């Protein structure tokens, strides 16, 4: 695409192996590529047998596919991680305070730091949540913060995932696979464990249970079902936490509580980790055609007899238009400068911004405000003339539907190819747990990698793969 120099996390910009990668590099140089190729195939077989697959929507036969896994780990030093995790914690704290405020006093609007229409005209804002305090005061129990890196010390937040972030099962299974295939690598490197996540998740959810239960809370995980693209993850997490994996038709409201149909009759659930969108949660309150949710669940929730994680209405915080206000949001609620950078963002609803975006379309990335999964976006530098023209029309027709950002020089990490190591662009999604007891960030996260040379799109639905992500003990 161009001759730009990217920061490579293994080789820097100068081509000398950076410190966190040195023990790995020594190991790698002593390995026979043939042996490693065999390991790569072995990894794929392992994933298939374990059933770590995702379902592809819109195909005649519900097809199960593997997300490609690359055997070269992405390595982050303990010092780098500490810095990152402080920034993540600050951001997540601000997001929760923001959500409380939005559904209560709306002080940030009154202070003139956020235009009112950003909330009132936003589909992700749920009037049903106004004045409702979620048990434990927590809105986003589970958050995934998407980060990109452009240099040794430069990290940007690309996106906040405050609804139902997915991918954590890959973080865990990628590590299991690496441990099984390359045990010797873990003797040479002190890698911080990720395997505590399911236990932490359970404890964090249980700590958010409605107050005054007087017994151990019952946690359930709500899945849309076996054909959902993330079903594997849902069953994996339920299994690892030792909780029931429920679907809408297993549940009903009885005596003001959410109950699940067991072999012994209906039993109450206190905390519901739902992997179903707001809109489908309660046909009586939201989408009346939904069969994925439970009629009346919102009444139980508002009465304080149930914890829903994440709380309904948290989507307002990860909206791409709200994203552009995140620096203000962090400052407003924490009183501190944001530790993590936001990517400069043009809101196309603004006339001057729109004009700038239209003039510079070829240099920018344009995204739909409510889009996800890498769909419906334009990457200016790699787009064809025809694509640019089409997008220009879309922008002019519905400017409020889009934001634009500069194309960042995303860092690269090597992947293993037929001809040896080759640099590919990556992002990182660390997973964050929030409870009244505090904020817990698992050291590592999900590294997604664009497997195509030069590509900046890391989404698994568009040819992205994953890597094990190591945070070293320094």
């Amino acid at each position, binding site marked *: 695409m161009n001759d730009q120099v990217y920061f490579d996390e293994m080789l820097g910009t100068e081509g000398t192996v950076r410190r966190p990668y040195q023990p790995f590099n020594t190991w790698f140089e002593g390995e026979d590529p043939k042996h490693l190729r065999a390991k790569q195939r072995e990894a794929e077989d392992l994933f298939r047998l374990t059933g770590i697959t995702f379902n592809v929507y819109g195909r005649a036969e519900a097809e199960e596919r593997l997300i490609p896994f690359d055997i070269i780990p992405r390595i982050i030093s303990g010092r780098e991680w500490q810095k990152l995790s402080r920034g993540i914690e600050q951001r997540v704290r601000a997001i929760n305070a923001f959500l409380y405020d939005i559904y209560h006093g709306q002080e940030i609007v009154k202070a003139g730091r956020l235009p009112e229409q950003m909330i009132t005209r936003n589909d992700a804002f749920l009037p049903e949540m106004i004045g409702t305090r979620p048990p434990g005061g927590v809105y986003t129990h589970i958050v995934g913060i998407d980060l990109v890196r452009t240099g040794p010390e430069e990290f940007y937040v690309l996106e906040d995932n405050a609804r139902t972030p997915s991918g954590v099962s890959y973080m865990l299974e990628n590590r299991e696979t690496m441990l099984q295939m390359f045990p010797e690598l873990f003797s040479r490197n002190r890698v911080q464990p990720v395997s505590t996540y399911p236990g932490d998740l359970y404890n964090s959810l249980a700590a958010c249970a409605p107050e005054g239960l007087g017994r151990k809370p019952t946690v359930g995980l709500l899945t849309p079902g076996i054909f959902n693209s993330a079903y594997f993850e849902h069953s994996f997490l339920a299994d690892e936490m030792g909780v029931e994996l429920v679907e809408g*038709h*297993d549940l009903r409201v009885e005596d003001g509580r959410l109950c699940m149909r067991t072999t012994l009759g209906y039993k109450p659930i206190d905390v519901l980790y739902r992997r179903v969108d707001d809109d489908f949660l309660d046909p009586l309150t939201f989408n009346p055609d939904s069969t994925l949710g439970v009629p009346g669940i919102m009444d139980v929730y508002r009465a304080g007899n149930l914890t829903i994680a994440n709380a309904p209405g948290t989507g307002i915080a990860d909206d791409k238009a709200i994203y552009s206000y995140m620096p203000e949001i962090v400052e407003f609620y924490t009183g501190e400068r944001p530790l993590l950078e936001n990517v400069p963002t043009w809101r196309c609803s603004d006339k001057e911004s729109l004009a700038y975006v239209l003039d510079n379309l070829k240099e920018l990335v344009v995204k739909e405000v409510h889009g996800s999964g890498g769909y419906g976006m334009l990457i200016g530098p790699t787009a064809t003339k025809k694509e640019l023209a089409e997008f220009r029309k879309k922008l002019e027709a519905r400017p409020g539907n889009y934001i634009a950002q500069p194309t960042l020089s995303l860092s690269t990490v090597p992947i293993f190819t037929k001809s040896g190591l080759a640099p590919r662009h990556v992002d990182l999604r660390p997973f964050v747990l929030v409870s009244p007891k505090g904020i817990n960030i698992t050291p590592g996260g999900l590294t997604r990698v664009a497997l195509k040379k030069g590509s900046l799109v890391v989404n698994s639905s568009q040819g992205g793969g994953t890597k094990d992500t190591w945070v070293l003990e320094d």
Partner: protein
Amino acid sequence: MLGKTANGLFWMYRALERAENTARLIETGQRIALTRMGASDEEWRSVLQTAGTLDGYIADHEKVTKDAAIDWLLRSRDNPSSVLCCVEQARMNARTVRTALTGEVWEAMNGTYMRVKEVLARKVSERDLPQVLGMIRQRTGLVRGATHGTMLRNDIYDFARIGTFLERADNTARIIDVKYYVLLPSVTAVGTSIDNVQWETILRSVSGQGGYRMEYGASSEPRDIAQFLILNRRMPRSLSFCAHKLRDNLGFLGSDYGERAPSFAKIDHIDRAYLSLDIDAVFDYGLHEFIQKMLLLLGDLGRQIEVDYRFYE
């Protein structure tokens, strides 16, 4: 445990057992076809009937031929009882109840599915048939072995076993139902070559030739075969054996849950009233009528279990 999970376990193991039994029926049919002169396509008709899928087959084909019958039983998508459909169903249920299974059981099940799907993607040639059938038996055995070796003996295990033995009892009853007439005491001289073929078919369909010899000696007697398949308490595919296992597991559920469900009374009745007899009483009742009655009672038991443990609403 969720009612849905109990349902999923029950059907996972039922489908798995059915896949294995169908493979065994094909194996038997093929063996008879190869070793006996005069064995005809009639034999395949009775195999289809035993597999409970003759009507479906006839709706789809003009006549019964060996090739078409084998393909129908092994891999037809139009036959919900084909080995391929059963293994897919078992695996689909396993995905639904994955949180209830050990990793080893899941991997054995998923590995079975992957292998079966690969091998049955194309028509199986006669030359490959023995290996394919052997693979199916081994793979389903692997899932059962992993279940036996790694699962806690709790309600999860009980529902798995109940599915297995209800399907197995049903299968053995259908084998007898289709061939009951060759087990009747006959006025003509027994031991004709036709009868021998039929008896061998029956024993092979339940992998029972060796066990039969141990219990009754080398010569086949229809009365002994009937006794072996219906009342023998050591034969793992006999009606009595299956009923005992069902009674055990429904009993364990009862003590686990603190109350015995109506399904326990039903299996207890089946066992006491029908499977604690001696074989003469069965013949007096009428072998055909007896088996028809058993099929009815087993169907009724299955429905009762669904209700007792809230499989559906």
